[in-house]
């Protein structure tokens, strides 16, 4: 029973991580660069929702399209400032420019909203439901559903539409795409918009359950980075699986003494939250050592 409950919590958390990681990989594929402000976009999404709800008190689900729109526009601005001036530079330049943009976003949020933790409104209503003796928060179910819808929608967009084809062609080979008459810069800008919109939704979803403060981004970007690596650099589905793995691990590991009663009491102390982080990083190192191509293999081609 507890196992199931932990699993639901882990998947809800993982669903939000996955949206963030998905955006991270989209930009990575399109530009070859690591967007280190992706975590700050999660934070921005949370605060955009908070700002909206102070003007217009409605449930989160109603806010969702507005958050997508605003953070998507933010992504366009982001790419115009942080990426396009540097697009012919080595990826590490973009890495630094996104760090700088992250600092700006954090402090604009700090000045505008203040330092205290804030919560976004729930997607539908607050509260829990009993599902066969399992107490599950309505928000958790809604988060999982919304994330699944978005991941599915993103898949359809990339695989079934002309726009998606152009986006994928741009990600695969910019020069070839340009030769085929695709407007590469537009596609990259749209990728940024899509990526920040996904992060923004993650912010809206997470900030109800886990609150949001201006400095939250660092935690999310580390998670997205790790998820992208264990999932195989450049693999969209791998990143989602990676995000799920991390979140479920984060939630389950500290509870292992309860789940596996045979563990000797003497080692219960090893299953703390801090050890969970240490073990996560050590596991990551082990993955890198044994499978340098990531758990699911690598597809992103190297760029000179």
């Amino acid at each position, binding site marked *: 029973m507890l196992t199931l409950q932990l699993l639901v919590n882990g998947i809800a958390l993982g669903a939000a991580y996955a949206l963030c990681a998905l955006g991270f990989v989209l930009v990575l594929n399109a530009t070859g660069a*690591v967007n280190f402000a992706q975590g700050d976009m999660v934070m921005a999404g949370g605060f955009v929702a908070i700002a909206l709800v102070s003007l217009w008190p409605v449930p989160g689900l109603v806010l969702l399209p507005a958050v997508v729109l605003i953070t998507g526009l933010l992504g366009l601005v982001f790419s115009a*400032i*942080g990426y396009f*001036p*540097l697009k012919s*530079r080595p990826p*590490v*330049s973009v*890495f*630094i*420019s996104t*760090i*700088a*943009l*992250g*600092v*700006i976003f*954090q*402090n*604009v949020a*700090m*000045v505008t909203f203040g330092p205290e933790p804030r919560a976004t409104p729930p997607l539908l209503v607050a509260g829990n439901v009993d599902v066969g003796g399992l107490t599950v928060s309505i928000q958790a179910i809604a988060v999982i559903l919304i994330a699944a819808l978005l991941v599915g929608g993103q898949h359809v967009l990339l695989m079934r539409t002309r726009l998606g084809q152009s986006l994928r062609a741009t990600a695969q080979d910019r020069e070839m795409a340009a030769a085929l008459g695709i407007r590469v810069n537009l596609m990259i800008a749209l990728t940024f918009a899509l990526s920040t919109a996904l992060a923004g939704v993650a912010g809206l979803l997470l900030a109800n359950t886990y609150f949001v403060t201006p400095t939250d981004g*660092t935690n999310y970007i*580390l998670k997205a*980075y*790790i998820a992208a*690596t264990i999932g195989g*650099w450049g693999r969209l589905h791998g990143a989602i699986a990676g995000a799920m793995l991390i979140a479920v691990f984060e939630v389950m590991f500290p509870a292992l003494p309860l789940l596996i009663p045979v563990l000797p009491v003497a080692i219960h102390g090893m299953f703390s939250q*801090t050890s969970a*982080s*240490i073990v996560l*990083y*050590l596991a*990551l*190192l082990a993955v*890198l*050592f044994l499978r*340098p191509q*990531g758990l699911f293999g690598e597809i992103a081609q190297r760029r000179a």
Partner: protein
Amino acid sequence: MSRRALISGLMPFAGLACLVAWPLVFNSPYDLRVFTLVGIYSILVLGYQFIFGHAGALALTQGAFFGIAAYVTGILGAKFGWSFPVTFPLSIVAPVLVAVVVAIPVLRLESHYFALATLGIAQVALLIAIKWESVTGGANGLAGVPGIGAFGLVLPRGYPTLAFVWGIAGVCALVAWWLMRSLRGRAFQLMRTSELAAMSIGLDTARLRFLAFLLSAAFAGIAGALHAHTLRVVSPEVLEFHVMVTCLTMAVIGGRTRVVGAFLGAFLLVQLPEWFRFLEHYYLIAYGGALLAMIIVAPDGLVGLLDRIGARLGLRPRHTLPAPVPLPSAAPEDVTAEVPLLSVNGLTKRFGGVAALEDVSFQVDRGEIVGLIGPNGSGKTTLVNIVTGLTPADAGEVRLMGQDITHDPAFRIVQRGVARTFQLIELVDDMTCLENVAVARLTKLGAGFGRSRSPTEVDAPFGLAKRQAAHLLERLGMLEAAFEPAGNLAQGLRRRLEIARALALEPRLLLLDEPAAGLNEIEQQDLAIRLKGLRTSGLALVVIEHNVPFLMAIADRLVCLNAGRVIAVGKPSDVRADPNVVAAYFGAQPADGLP
């Protein structure tokens, strides 16, 4: 010319004067403290330039090395009361030891995996510092770290500490400059541009990267120890990712490989938030904005920006062509002539289930030119890669003058006298032709990184390497392009440059992968004459070509591969007439150059 030379000669002195003047003008205790921090961060960034700038690996451990050293100083100083002469060396040794242990699993990883692995290590160090309360003082850290001092005397704050820290920074700068100056820095440039090319000139790239990693750790150790002494407390904050990001930013903003860049980056990033303090809540926004503007305006760092301004003013240093010096003539060989130079026996290689090579055997004698032909995908390049040690063989052996080299690493095979060129040319485009060749000459002369002679004769190999490189360029008829960046050359000259670089290694056997590809008729004829000329010195050539007429003109023998097997060996005219060869070419696809 002379006025410009004077100006560019005076630049370093002007910089040094600014450096000395700054703390004299801005001399309040606060200004002196901030300037001391600039010195400390400069050392950190100088170290980071080894692994990040020169070796080109995005390591995210530099902050952790810094923090580990600070903790060693803090724990030994505050808890055990040990003083500077003991704690300082130990604080440098500790991160270096960690680097040695970490390097084994991590250093072989590729780019982003390497970055993430190093980040993971740094995070583990941070968590340990927080959790291991009894030793590290937990999240609070340790207070009461003694100042820099010995035998009961402690260096006061202000000028004495500043002078000491900057003295060490100066020494570090000299060491960094000396290690990376001239062609040695160019060797690193080659390595980070093309690892393949670096291995093909006999550089042990794994060892170079390892050394760079250790140097980074050692410099970080120096900086971390000084930071703990200056601040007098150590807390987990020194291990946080923030420190690493600051260090990385300093390196990118200042300049990744130049000593001056480390100082400029550290100065700017320490001072910038202080200058913006008056903006109160908005100062970090301004800081982020300034950072962003900087990376857009000066993407190669401040050093790159200064270079560009200098170039605009015509301050570019003038090149003088070194007088060409011929390479020493090869020593008479003591091996009996019966042993072939190269013999390949039963070589087999599979990728997945597909056999790229199946039981391939052939020989090459001294002074012989062997042409290697075969349709696309017949295994020619795989064969060259195995002979040169880039790809391991599944079965069979490769012998060079009777000695088994099948399992030797690539750089060792080069040292034994096998050189090669690449189908897709691997040159450093923003290095001059002369430097591209001289770097290879330097590794041959044995004056490479970490193999330095005594300081009095260090410059001799650099000079000699350049003069011999000039000779090689002359021999290939491209001396006038010596100071042209390799990226500016036409295809024909690029091919020749690659051959010149390979010849710099004084090989016994030279493997050329499609040297005539992309050349026009005249260039092809010219190349054919030059290749035939090379043979006079006893050098053997293996030439992969689709262009059979080109091969017919120069080759003594042809070896034809099809689907990984040798289907014909012999005189060019015989092989060309062989029905198997004709079938292989016309059966598979239209031949590029068959008559």
